[in-house]
């Protein structure tokens, strides 16, 4: 369809580090931006990370800067709990239908917390990958932006719901809120839909059903001060500090039965996890099971730093399976390819370095009608603009690089 009205506005789909970056970079060059995020707050996966490799600094630091940039900018319009339902038109003139799901809290919420105190029931806490619970009226996390509460639909029409409603002095609770859709006219669309951890339950041989087999993203939450254990690394089965931990690389990645590509970040994320453990648990040993250790460019020095620790050992082996062991200790079975030893090693805690799968992999993005590659990534080409992990398995720094580039591509598109 030939569009008549040109729009300089840019739509960014996804409010993770990539989407945020594309939005602020474009806005700071003088373009209006509509930022659409499906969860209640911005920040995406990085908000759920404890720290970044290699500096072990906190992702929330960079988020704070970016949130400030968004707050200062009058050009960025943010829609949370919103998804893109349809995209019509072409470069320079798109009509995009945005669908918002009910937050049950109006924009005038001051985050005073009265609703949270009134709530009695609890729901699984998505921010902590459901490892703990939150009240049915909750602030997603302390860095939440926008800083507004969310009320779970489950309390609608219950006495608890009424109590929550009554508790709000400024009438910001709306339990009858319904799904809504509206259209925006934009000149370019940037897909920054990010990733999800590859489902560990699909790795049947690795027995994710065992209590002390967890994933790398769960490890991030365990180590985070805002996590389910307040930052203490404890094994789920008995809340004890693990003494012997295994980190399994390529849990899903580089595997034609799962993710054919290398997720790039897992090796370094595991080095970071080794560092978390050794920081907290002086006498703990960490065994890293790997096929190839992949630490690109200067990150090699981070790998070397961890390798210097005699209590972090490296086993060149892709474990074949995990068996349940006594005392809820998972037993790692496989072959050490450098010694030819076939091992069956018990651990207090096993962390699966599951890979990144594009959010678009399972085709849950009806609005995107372009071509996905074989893995489900959106390859940026022609009118299609993608940023960050939506475009390929990238680390944070590379995602920001890609997102900054996407901002320029989008500006070009509006001029097309």
């Amino acid at each position, binding site marked *: 369809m030939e569009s008549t009205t040109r729009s300089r506005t840019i739509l960014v789909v996804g409010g993770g580090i990539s989407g945020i970056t594309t939005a*602020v970079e474009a806005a*700071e*060059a003088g373009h209006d931006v509509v930022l659409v995020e499906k969860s209640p707050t911005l920040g995406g996966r990085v908000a759920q990370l404890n720290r*970044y490799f290699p*500096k*072990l*600094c*906190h992702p*929330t*630091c*960079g*988020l*704070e*800067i*970016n949130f400030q*940039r968004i707050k*200062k*900018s009058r050009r960025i319009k943010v829609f949370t709990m919103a998804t893109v339902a349809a995209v019509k038109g072409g470069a320079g003139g798109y009509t995009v239908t945005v669908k918002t799901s009910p937050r049950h809290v109006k924009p*005038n919420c*001051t*985050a005073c917390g009265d609703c949270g105190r009134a709530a009695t029931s609890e729901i699984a806490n998505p921010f902590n990958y459901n490892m703990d619970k939150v009240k049915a009226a909750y602030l997603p996390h*302390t*860095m939440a932006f926008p*800083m507004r509460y969310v009320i779970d639909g489950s309390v609608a029409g219950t006495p608890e719901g009424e109590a929550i409603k009554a508790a709000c*002095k*400024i009438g910001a609770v709306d339990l009858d809120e319904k799904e809504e859709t509206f259209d925006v006219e934009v000149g370019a669309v940037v897909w920054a839909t990010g990733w999800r951890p590859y489902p560990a339950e699909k790795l049947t041989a690795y027995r994710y059903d065992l209590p002390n087999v967890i994933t790398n993203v769960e490890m991030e939450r365990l180590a985070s*001060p*805002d996590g389910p254990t307040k930052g203490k690394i404890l094994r789920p089965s008995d809340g004890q500090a693990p003494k012997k931990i295994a980190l399994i690389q390529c849990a899903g990645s580089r595997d034609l039965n799962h993710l*054919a*590509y*290398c997720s*790039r970040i897992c090796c370094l994320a595991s080095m970071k996890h080794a560092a978390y453990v050794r920081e907290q648990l002086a006498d703990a040993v960490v065994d890293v099971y790997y096929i*190839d250790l*992949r630490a*690109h*460019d*200067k*990150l*090699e*020095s981070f790998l070397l730093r961890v390798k210097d620790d005699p209590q972090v050992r490296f086993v*060149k082996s892709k474990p074949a399976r995990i068996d349940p062991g006594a005392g809820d200790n998972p037993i790692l079975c496989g072959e050490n390819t*450098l010694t030819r030893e076939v091992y069956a090693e018990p651990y207090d805690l096993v962390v699966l370095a599951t890979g990144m799968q594009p959010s678009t992999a399972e085709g849950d993005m009806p609005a995107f009608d372009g071509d996905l590659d*074989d*893995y489900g*990534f959106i*390859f940026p*080409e022609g009118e299609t603009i993608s940023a960050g992990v939506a475009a*390929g*398995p990238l680390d944070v*720094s*590379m995602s*920001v*690089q*890609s997102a*900054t*580039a996407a901002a*320029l591509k989008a*500006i*070009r598109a509006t*001029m097309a």
Partner: protein
Amino acid sequence: MSERNTGVYLCSGCGIGEALNMDALEKVSKSEYKLEPKSHACLCSDEGVGMIRSDIEGGVNQVIVAACSARVMTDRFAFEPNTLIRADLREKVIWSHPAGDEDTQMLAEDYLRMALASAPKINPPTPWIEGEYSQRICVLGGGVTGLNAALEAAAVGHDVLLIERSDRLGGWAVDASKRLPHRPPYAQPEENNIADLVAKVQGEGKITVRMGVTVTRTAGMPGKFAVTLSDGAVEDVGAIVIATGWRPYEAEKLGHLGYGASPDVVTNVQFEAMLKEGRPTRKSDGKALKSVAFVQCAGSRDPAHLPYCSNTCCATSLKQALELIETDPTTNCFVIYEEMRTPGTAEELYRTAQSAGVIFIKGKVKAVGSDLTVTVADELVQEEIPLQGLDMVVLATGMVPNSTNTMLPSEAGENPQLHGDVDPEAPIKVAGYAGEAPPAHERREQVVYEGASLLNLQYRQGPHLPVLHDGFADSHYICFPYETRRSGIYTCGPVRRPMDWAEAEEDAQGAVMKAVQAVRSAAAGAALHPRVGDLSYPKIGLNQCTKCRRCTVECPFGAIDETEEGFPSVNSTRCRRCGTCMGACPVRTISFDNYSVESLVTQIKSVNIPDEFSGKPRLLLIACENDAVPALDMAGIKHNNWSAFVRVLPVRCLGSVSLLCVSEALLGGYDGVMLMGCKAGDDYQCHFVKGSAMAAERLGKIGETLKSMMLEPERVVQVEASIADADRLPKVIDGFVEQIMAIGFNPMKGF
């Protein structure tokens, strides 16, 4: 500016009204500052904001909002161009201190006083806009990265000056055979399209190409750079994109891998050029290649050579092997590696190479004989194996960044240069606080740069663009990969990080994005990252300046130069508005319209200091607003309590804190002062590179001052805070209070 007309607005919502005595708060404004406050039960509501807006229509031009933290409701309390001052009674008072408590009330009143007291010192900033601004973007380097950068900048409407030191465009790509795969299905080498790229650039009217020249000097600032070329031409540009790329690690240093032992031991770069000319043959005797070994990490990942991984060598060797097999499937190709690094979708190329029959041998190369026998400690077969009958050995040498121009000698004379990182082993030396400034060489870390600087910046802080320890001109920040320490100058491509062709193309777009912002912001007098859009800038009262040069030395961004007479001269569009100069100035003659030593000191002095008989100490917490203040906010959000004896004074950066703030506080009767800022050192978190390091540096010198005041040095401390310290900081603060109580009250009280 029109007559100051300040409106004061108190919010009693979110429990503030229940926890505090609002009347008493109003009284502070009324009786102490003669300003009639207005209270509202929910100031951020349409009604509350409406009230403020109608007052603004009625002439109010400065708004004081005493409600929640300045980090929230920013969209509601937005009254530009009128100045806004916010006192945080929620996060930092009622959420972090007991309700209905005398000390909590005093705390709230003091925060209101600080806001009220600062009001007269805070003016709406008038941006620095002067003369002509260039929208033109200069791209340095005509390789893949530079060509893409030039095209991208032109595509979004900017004129481009493309400078290439050689007499041809295209860089290494011209001598390269195929490209690494980059588009789905990522499995096969792709055609080298460098010729089209060059043609595009030459056909683009907005791009001026200058070949065979280098930059001999660069003066000015974003929007106003004057770039002088080796042929004498002087060009005006608004921003600079450095895309000078890489060079192969010197193969001569790889004797241990057989380089030089035989003409048939070549580097991957040499081999690439041979492939471009068709199927290579032995250099020694021209015989066909039947058996070739590729030795990975030739220099890279070797502490004796390059400490880092060069990223592209693994994939490049696979590609080269595939090109050999393509022309003769019977060719034996061996890749000798320690870790096969084909990250992301490059894993497909690895599989392609395997199914094509490339053999992968994991292990270290022990020796390479002149007969090309490569002895490998084969880790998988678990024996030492001599690989015999090879026709050629290809060393996968790594990438060395062209962060300088090694084809030219370094600039004549001494060019002291600040290192890119704050190195603990070599602490930054700043001018002593008494007497003459020490000579230049003592004043700075020395980093010996090989070759000439790329731009020869005419900056007080040296001609080079600071680099990281590994020599790459990359950003120190994970979240902000394009942040260099020279405003308006951005790097991309392999000079920033070892990267392949496709990544460099994208990187060029990213850097151009930043350059476009730089020229547009410069023309508007607005700051760049991280205080994006800040219109204030440092103003220096030269009549009081003692030419001590501390401001020029300490500026992390080299924004301040020195005039012939030795006076500082600010290049406003280079400035990031951190205020480090302001904190450095011993005669405090550097200030911003809305931020000054005075505005800080008046706040410090505005606090009520009870006498010691009250048993209530007062402590000043000077907190960096980047990480420390948000962390305290979040402590409040989590309802973590801390001592109500502490008064938090947010600052732009600890670098902007003049020691005067500390001494004034102690003279004024505070019992202790804590500076709280970002991590310094190698992995620094300071948003302005070395502000917190500078603060520490200065604080190190306060000992004498305290002694002269007969005060214990323990009364002044600096702590590092991260944004994730919401649980830790209250403990730290309370610990400090205990420490001070142990020392006893400040004897200066009441003087």
